[in-house]
């Protein structure tokens, strides 16, 4: 199964005479003052596709357009060749016949119904026995048997999330849309739901569009990543590729961390409190020390270092406590509004930020030999892709 999406939607003035408003198919006016016009084109095969970007960049609108809640101005949406929207051919299937499971950002559980009634809500056309079997599978699969008789306001955020997921899967959808499903729950619950999502993904083999602005979620689920900015797609690929390559400025700002590399644990030192990791990118590799963790020797890890945490020196730093000292040459100097980004090839391509004054006083220039130094604890290990 593959989802194909090509849609445009303008939120500017003049569409129906009112600025910043548009008609949704449920007939309500919706105000989107900070909305950018949407113009996207992508495909999502079976498995996770992550729509990543800041809020207001059009991710949620994309999900609403695919589900039929919002009507695009133009474009075409197909699931496995079956056209559900086509502005040229005049096709616009109603929401209820699109066969799409949708977990809303606020979950939208029916407050007047119990968890069980929520899960059963959309199931129709089954014999009583089949119905019971399907509900049973969902409830056990998502581990919510203990709360079936409780109403949404009586259950925790993580449980509500599972109920919403079970409900979205109850009609055996051919596409699953998840809008920031893990934004409001604690780390531990998050990890267990992520592992459930991965299992659902393996079992059902349907396209899952997953909207998030969390880098960790993107990396831990990540098969395919689509980066949104102001209604456009500005990057696509595997999370590691996107986050790990010398980064387009927009993506860097979204992710907040300039240096992200994939690496392999070379050795572990529990007494020293460090892991030694060999990180690499397309052009080279180098070895650094990162905080001790439970990653196995030879296992792969993702390491993130913020550019602001890296010290740049024109002589080799001696007699310091810094564990990571690398040497290389400056490949570029880029002035930004309040800082200067210096890129240094030291095994891999590093970004470090300094003040303009430092650039002058140290006489930094492209090609100059420099040293990079940073603490073990400036290195962050991100959740690992499976």
């Amino acid at each position, binding site marked *: 199964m593959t989802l194909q999406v090509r849609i445009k939607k303008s939120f500017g003035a003049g569409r129906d005479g009112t600025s910043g408003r548009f*008609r949704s198919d*449920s*007939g*309500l*006016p919706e105000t989107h003052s900070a909305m950018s016009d949407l113009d996207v084109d992508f495909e999502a095969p079976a498995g996770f596709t992550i729509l990543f970007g800041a809020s207001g960049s059009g991710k949620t609108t994309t999900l609403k357009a695919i*589900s*039929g*809640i919002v009507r695009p101005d133009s474009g075409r949406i197909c699931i496995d060749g079956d056209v559900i929207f086509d502005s040229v051919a005049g096709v616009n299937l*109603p*929401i*209820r*016949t*699109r066969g*799409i*499971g*949708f977990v*809303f950002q*606020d979950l*939208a559980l*029916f*407050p*007047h119904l119990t968890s069980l009634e929520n899960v059963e*809500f*959309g199931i*129709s056309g089954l014999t009583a026995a089949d119905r019971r079997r399907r509900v049973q599978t969902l409830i056990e699969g998502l581990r919510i048997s203990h709360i079936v008789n409780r109403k949404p306001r009586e259950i925790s955020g993580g449980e509500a999330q599972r109920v919403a997921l079970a*409900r*979205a899967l*109850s*009609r055996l959808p051919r596409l699953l849309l998840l809008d920031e499903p893990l934004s409001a729950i604690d780390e531990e619950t998050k990890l267990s739901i992520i592992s459930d999502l991965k299992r659902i993904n393996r079992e059902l083999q349907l396209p899952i569009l997953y909207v998030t602005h969390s880098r960790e979620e993107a990396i831990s689920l990540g098969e395919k990543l689509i980066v949104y900015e102001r209604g456009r797609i500005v990057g696509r690929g595997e999370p590691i590729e996107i986050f790990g390559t010398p980064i387009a400025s927009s993506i860097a700002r979204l992710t907040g961390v300039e240096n992200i590399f994939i690496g392999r644990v070379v050795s572990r030192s529990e007494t020293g409190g460090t892991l030694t990791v060999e990180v690499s990118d397309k052009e080279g590799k180098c070895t650094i020390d990162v905080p001790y963790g439970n990653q196995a020797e030879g296992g792969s890890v993702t390491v993130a270092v913020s550019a602001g945490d890296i010290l740049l020196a024109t002589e080799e730093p001696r007699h310091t406590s810094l564990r990571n000292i690398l040497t290389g040459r400056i490949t570029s100097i880029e002035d930004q509004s309040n800082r200067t980004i210096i890129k240094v090839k030291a095994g891999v391509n590093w970004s470090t930020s300094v003040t303009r004054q430092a650039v002058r006083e140290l006489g930094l220039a492209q090609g100059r030999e420099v040293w990079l130094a940073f603490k073990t604890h400036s290195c962050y290990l991100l959740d690992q892709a499976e």
Partner: protein
Amino acid sequence: MSEIDWFPLILSLRVALIATAFVVVLGVALGWLLARKRFFGREFLDAAVTLPLVLPPTVLGYYLLVLLGRRSFVGRAIESITGQPLVFTWRGAVVAAGIGALPLVVKTSRTAIASVDTNLEDAARTLGQSEWRVFQRVTMPLASRGIIAAGMLAFARALGDFGATLMVAGNIPGKTQTAAIAIFDASQAGRDNYALVLVVILSAVTLLLVYSTNKLTSGR
């Protein structure tokens, strides 16, 4: 005065009950339309259904007489279907009382329906529900307090209708004389004790209804 004539009170209750049944269906439908659909003339429709609240009852009664009278098209159609005219019968009183109560039902149910989260309705649509089923299974249950309140207000209002009822149904003792009209009649004729009995009963019932409505819409 030895024997109290209960007919006007019973007629009023019957008229109000039937009028409420009709007007709740119509008023909730209009309330839903106004809360959930955008269409040309929406606010005009809202204003039009509000009119009975502010127009003099005589004006309302006049409109209804013209619209439903025996010489009008609608009036003749009704007469040919049911075999009897609408005006100057208790059925006319139902129409008059219902129209008077309509604005209350529309306003109250519009507010109640608008307060239901549209995400819940969209969620129901993604779960394969038709517009009617969405209304029936999500919107209505979640707006039920407001809708019940609307019904109670409508009943209270219909129970007390005077001007429009008088013009459309007349004042025929034992036929179309409702409690409100009987009070007027009794007071004019100096039968003050009888008027007082009806006044007290009507006031008590209405007070109870409005009190319950307030409890229902403010509580949670």
